[in-house]
């Protein structure tokens, strides 16, 4: 009986996460001063199905713009985004996006926030609430169903945001410095929980951060971007065992070595970005 209900359809494992490819992706913005400003230039990137890929780069290098283009929130000036070889036009239902700033709806309760995605996608109210309940348990927010985001701590709000995204079962998960607003301890706990969720669900992940430690601790591959305009400078494979604990892995000698190696590559770009920022002032 239950196997035919929409609840089970929605819970059934999604099709395998897609292969995500960006080719020659470019974004220019009109700038009244210089005429045009190139933020992202000829960016090529391939994220194999189910890979956790971290993008690191200096602050303001255009990392967020890359994610916005993949999500379909912004149109690339040129170049393409494809999933399993099919070009993504606009917002794709397989996509999930966890934003840097709080993007949960302050006027909805925790339950309504998490049920929002399925509701927007046409799931009936009862099923959406069941799904939301399940996710409330998975992210450990039992007892807070009827709370409003303003009544929660930063870490709890982040959990709501994660559940809100994961309830849609995204095959492509885009995360834009999702933990940047949190304190160091909460950040580590959230990283830990994110890995747990991702390992049980599977998704092709693009995780933007400027925290190199976080990138290495979470990802299968770390991609270093150049200072603006952003393009791929170098890629590093993270060969650390999974399942892994982001907190403990930091003490692994391989982690330390890799951190050194990537940092030497990244630091040039950081310095360029820093010099520009101070010159502009």
């Amino acid at each position, binding site marked *: 009986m239950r196997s035919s209900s929409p609840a089970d359809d929605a819970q059934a494992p999604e099709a395998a996460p897609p292969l995500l490819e960006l080719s020659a992706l470019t974004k220019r913005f009109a700038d009244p001063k210089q005429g045009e400003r190139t933020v992202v230039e000829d960016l090529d990137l391939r994220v194999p199905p189910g890979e956790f890929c971290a993008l690191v780069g200096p602050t303001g290098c255009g990392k967020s713009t890359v994610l916005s283009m993949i999500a379909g929130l912004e149109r690339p000036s040129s170049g393409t985004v494809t999933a399993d070889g099919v070009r993504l036009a606009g917002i794709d239902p397989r996509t999930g996006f966890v934003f840097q700033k709080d*993007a949960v*709806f302050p006027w*909805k309760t925790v339950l309504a926030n998490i049920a929002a995605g399925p509701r*927007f*996608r046409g799931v009936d109210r009862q099923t959406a609430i069941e799904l939301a309940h399940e996710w409330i348990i998975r992210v450990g927010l039992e007892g807070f169903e009827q709370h409003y985001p303003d009544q929660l701590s930063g870490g709890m709000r982040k959990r709501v945001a994660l559940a809100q995204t994961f309830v849609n079962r995204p095959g492509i998960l885009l995360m834009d410095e999702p933990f940047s607003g949190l304190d160091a301890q909460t950040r580590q706990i959230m990283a830990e929980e994110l890995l747990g969720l991702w390992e049980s669900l599977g998704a092709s992940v693009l995780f933007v951060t400027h925290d190199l430690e976080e990138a290495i601790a979470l990802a299968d591959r770390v991609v270093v971007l150049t200072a603006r305009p952003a393009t791929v400078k170098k890629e590093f494979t993270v060969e650390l065992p999974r399942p892994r604990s982001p907190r403990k892995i930091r003490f692994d000698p391989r982690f330390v070595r890799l951190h050194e190696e990537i940092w030497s590559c990244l630091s040039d770009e950081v310095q360029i970005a820093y010099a520009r920022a101070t010159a502009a002032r």
Partner: protein
Amino acid sequence: MKTIARRTTVPAIQIGLLAALLGAWQLAVDTKRISVFFFGSPAGTWRELYEWIRRGTVQGPLWQQAWVTLQETLIGFAIGVVLGVLLGLVLGRIPLLARVFTVYIGTMNSIPRIVLGSVFIIWFGTGMGSKIALVVVLVFFSVFFNAFQGARDVDQNLIANARVLGARRGSVMLHVVFPSAFSWIIASLRVAFGLAITGAVVGELLGATQGLGLLIQQSQGNFDPDGVYAGLVVTTLLALVAEGLITLLERRLLRWKPRRRPQTATT
């Protein structure tokens, strides 16, 4: 202990001040320092009110007059709010329309709108229609500008989130834009309700067959200041009740907002 004392002292002072003011007025009239003929008196106003309540007014029972004014106010308020909110949200979300129409709306806003009451009486006669029209015009603008601003003020991040989660245009409007603009809109409702009552009463002053405004206008014609005051008292009571209802509505609909508790001094 101190806070309890403070909680009772403030209302006590407030009541005391009011009593002193009314007492001084009454005293000035009784000792003939000011003319009761021109300025009336608190006791006279009370007598007039009591008369209206017991025997009714010249135009019929008091409640009936109040009901007429209240109906004009409520109907006009409802229409004005709905129009203001809808137009404000739509124009706030569609920049092209906003650019086209803001000139017209801005210009119409600078018309001293209360004068339109005269026009409406010519158009719609001395019945309720002309007052409702005046109320609508007054309410519309105060709500419109807030709804417009509120719709433009929506956090782009929230809209982006809703869209990625799967919301289409209508859902974005309903689940993000409207609730976000709501705190702006509700702030305008208080002012708008005050304007609505003003509109209804002024409309009746300009020409009516029933209503509190007519009552005030007739008292003015009879050179009866107490009657004018009595009319004002009833109008004010209506406004206060409405204000209370709006506060309740606000509490219910803006539950999600952290309420800033007024800091009580703890010295």
